[in-house]
């Protein structure tokens, strides 16, 4: 039997990797991938708790998280394409249109 803390620790490691990627990466696409990684880590935690209780509500929440992640990916990638079209870059440091200069 694998104890619940193993699953939760693994999810914590994945979330930390995702956060480090979001903060350090400059390519907007890789930043998005790291956000997906963080969403998955949260999903993993939900499922681990669902197994711990045991309560199937965690599975329903995981289902909703997947749906929201799909919507987020579609809109986010559309924004990346629009930004690339107008500025010719996907570097998150160079997109400073509403920065107070």
């Amino acid at each position, binding site marked *: 039997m694998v104890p619940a803390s193993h699953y939760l620790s693994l999810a914590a490691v994945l979330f930390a990797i995702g956060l480090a990627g979001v903060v350090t990466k400059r390519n907007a696409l890789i930043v998005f991938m790291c956000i997906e990684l963080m969403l998955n880590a949260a999903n993993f935690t939900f499922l681990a708790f669902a*197994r*711990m209780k045991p309560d199937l509500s965690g599975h329903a929440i995981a289902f909703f998280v997947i749906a929201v992640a799909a919507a987020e990916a579609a809109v986010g990638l559309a924004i990346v394409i629009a930004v690339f079209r107008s500025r010719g870059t996907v570097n998150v440091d160079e997109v400073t249109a509403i920065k107070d200069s």
Partner: protein
Amino acid sequence: MPDKAEIFVFWPLAVLLVGFAGGVLAARNPVYAAMSLVGAFFCMSGLYVLLTAHLVAFLQILVYAGAIMVLFLFVIMLLSLSDEELGVSRMKAMQAFGALGGIGLLAVLLGAVHASGDQGMPPVDARFGTVKAVADVLFRQYLLPFEATSVLLLVAIVGAVMVAKQRV
């Protein structure tokens, strides 16, 4: 010995998962990052099966590794970034702070997990996590959020088309 078998499945998948996640972080080329992420999603799906979440494991492969990652790959191909654009990395100071933040968060989370103690998993019946059982919860207890999800997806579709279109 079902207990031993579970541990023998868990550790290889966990190590592979962390390796693939690290690959996303280390990759310079977004295509390699995307392929690494697909591998991570497959390992995660295996761990979901270990948590007796069969439906979510199936959805993980179908929606994440299938649909969302194909969308990512399409966008990567569409943008066709040049090599010098890919090579640049953020300032070293930023990277150091990012790594520091990640490690700090990891320490806090692991501390919280450790403080909660080692809880074993209770045995569950064979219906747990199957399509029928999850659908029962979804359509009785969470019917309104489920219907709201369809509106959300519709809004996302329309929004994505409006944003990505050249001229409306």
